């Protein structure tokens, strides 16, 4: 072991660093904590200042009231969001690995231009810009109010293709693809037996990010879905509009809507951080 001289003190976490991080952590956590506390309280408690810091015993009653508030269709919203987010996630990951494989490992005319098109259009807010034509398209197809109306537009995810292209070009050596070719494997065979296994960690991260993103969508579902068949975010917006003064019920719904994301975060936090950091360096 060689000790470097002189040691650069820059890397030691001093008292200031610890204070900064602790404050940041408290600021990050407090609104989330407050949300869960409110979900266990009564509406009288909700008006206390300062707000209550400890959980109360009212969670069961709040959940009951939430589920029996018919005009919010909260359970329907929760189930719909699960269906939409899962379908979008599986499809985007599949579409992105297919395209990423082609862009990273296969030679074909126009591949640079096609990839460039994806990169450029990633910077265009397609959903906001195209909201009127998208709506008219759904009317023409007879899809307004139906879940496919909020599934199909979200399958256009340039970020996924870009990420899988990056991942494939680094995770799969060209020699491996060549060797498989010499062995007589078809392109699809290479995709199945060489590419997919190598991409698996990247696919997992992409899946988590796409799931969170889709679960979060608000503007488009608000426009195209009907109140009686909502996704979870528009259901909360309906709660907020019609029952905004029933604070604890609103917060119970809100807490329930982020719970699936938090479960994913707790289970796969390490992979999410790793994936974000890897993606950032490659970008």
């Amino acid at each position, binding site marked *: 072991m060689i000790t470097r001289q002189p040691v*650069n003190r*820059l*890397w030691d976490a001093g008292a200031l*660093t610890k204070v900064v991080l602790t404050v*940041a*952590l408290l600021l*990050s*956590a407090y*609104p*989330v904590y*407050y949300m869960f506390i409110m979900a266990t309280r009564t509406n009288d408690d*909700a*008006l*206390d*200042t300062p707000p209550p810091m400890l959980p109360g015993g009212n969670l069961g009653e709040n959940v009951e009231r939430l589920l029996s508030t018919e005009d919010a269709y909260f359970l329907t919203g929760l189930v719909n969001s699960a269906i939409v987010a899962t379908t979008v996630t599986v499809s985007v990951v*599949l*579409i992105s690995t*297919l*395209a990423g*494989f*082609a862009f990273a490992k*296969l030679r074909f005319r126009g591949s640079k231009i096609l990839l460039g098109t*994806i990169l450029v259009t990633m910077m*265009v*807010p397609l959903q*906001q*810009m*195209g909201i*009127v034509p998208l*709506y*008219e398209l759904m009317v023409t197809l007879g899809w307004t109010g139906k879940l496919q109306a909020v599934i199909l537009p979200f399958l*256009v995810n340039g970020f996924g293709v870009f990420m899988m292209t990056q991942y494939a070009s680094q995770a799969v050596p060209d020699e491996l693809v060549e060797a*498989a070719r010499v*062995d*007589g*494997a078809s*392109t699809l*065979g290479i*995709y*199945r*037996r*060489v590419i*997919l*296994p190598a991409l698996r960690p990247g696919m997992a991260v992409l899946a988590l990010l796409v799931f*969170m993103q889709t679960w979060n969508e*608000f503007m488009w579902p608000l426009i195209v879905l009907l109140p009686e068949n909502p996704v979870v975010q528009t259901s*909360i917006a309906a709660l907020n*509009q019609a029952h905004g003064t029933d604070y604890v019920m609103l917060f119970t719904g*809100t807490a329930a*809507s982020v719970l699936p994301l*938090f479960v*994913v*975060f707790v289970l796969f936090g*390490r992979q999410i*951080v790793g994936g*974000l*950091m890897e993606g*950032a*360096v490659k*970008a």
Partner: protein
Amino acid sequence: MTLQLATPPRHASPKRARPGRRMSRFDLRGMPYLLVSPYFLLFAVFGIFPLLYTFWLSLYDAELAGDREFAGLSNYAKLIVDADFWNAVFNTVGIFVPATVPQIILALLLANALNKRLRGRLFWRLGVLLPMVTSVVAVAVVFSQLYSRDYGLFNWILGLVGIEPIAWQNEKWSSWIAIATMVDWRWTGYNAIILLAAMQTIPKDLYEAAAIDGASPRRQFWQITLPMLRPTIVFVVFISTIGGLTLFTEPVMFEGEQIMTGGTTGQYQTVAMFIVEQAFRGSFQIGYASAAAWLLFVLILFGTMINYWFTRRIGGAR
């Protein structure tokens, strides 16, 4: 799909019969296009078509499910003198600045702290990422409550130092701050993680050399860290610009009712809200809304260029 993943990944079996000549020709030439086609088909239908159709619509005097009549550039001409549109642009920029500038500065500070030798690294990183996992609607509901006039935490804290309760919804400046903090809160940690990743790619030798030359940690930050981070800062600012100028969910939830007016006098109506209001609330002027959508795009291009120019100067070669 998932079943295929379970097949042994090692080698393609050499015993497989070679496919016919013609097949393998198609396999080499045509298959790549087939592989990228699902994305581009969806992209054409749900990406490019709406974009172009929006432009076409913007040239028409059109109502949702109603008559349409060619109107040339008159929608744009009307928009340019529409005080409500400019109010929305003003609000959007007014929210964007306090939603982005503190966010990037705090993210840099946080990334720098996370980059130190620390125990429990993953714990701290997950901690700052927690807001990103909270959905935007949830953030807006929680913050709207924290900003409530009579029972909110913020007014209570201000009351401790003798400041009268603020009706955050009522004024431009206060509603802008309320909405901006929702954005700041949700995205600062995410950007810190992205910046941290970039910081870790900076060779440590640079700092060693600087330390030997007697450069203080602060000087090292300004002279090494910041310039080396410039591409990542450009990227982060870029993403924030697109997100910030299309802001919708936070102000809509802050308003509570889904009428898109952004407060009684439009004090926090953003451009995205303006577009939705024109097209889907009340008047259903889809031609007019489409023109506004294209002007929003111009605003984004403009904003991106300004930010790019500005960010390039950060820690620039002096």
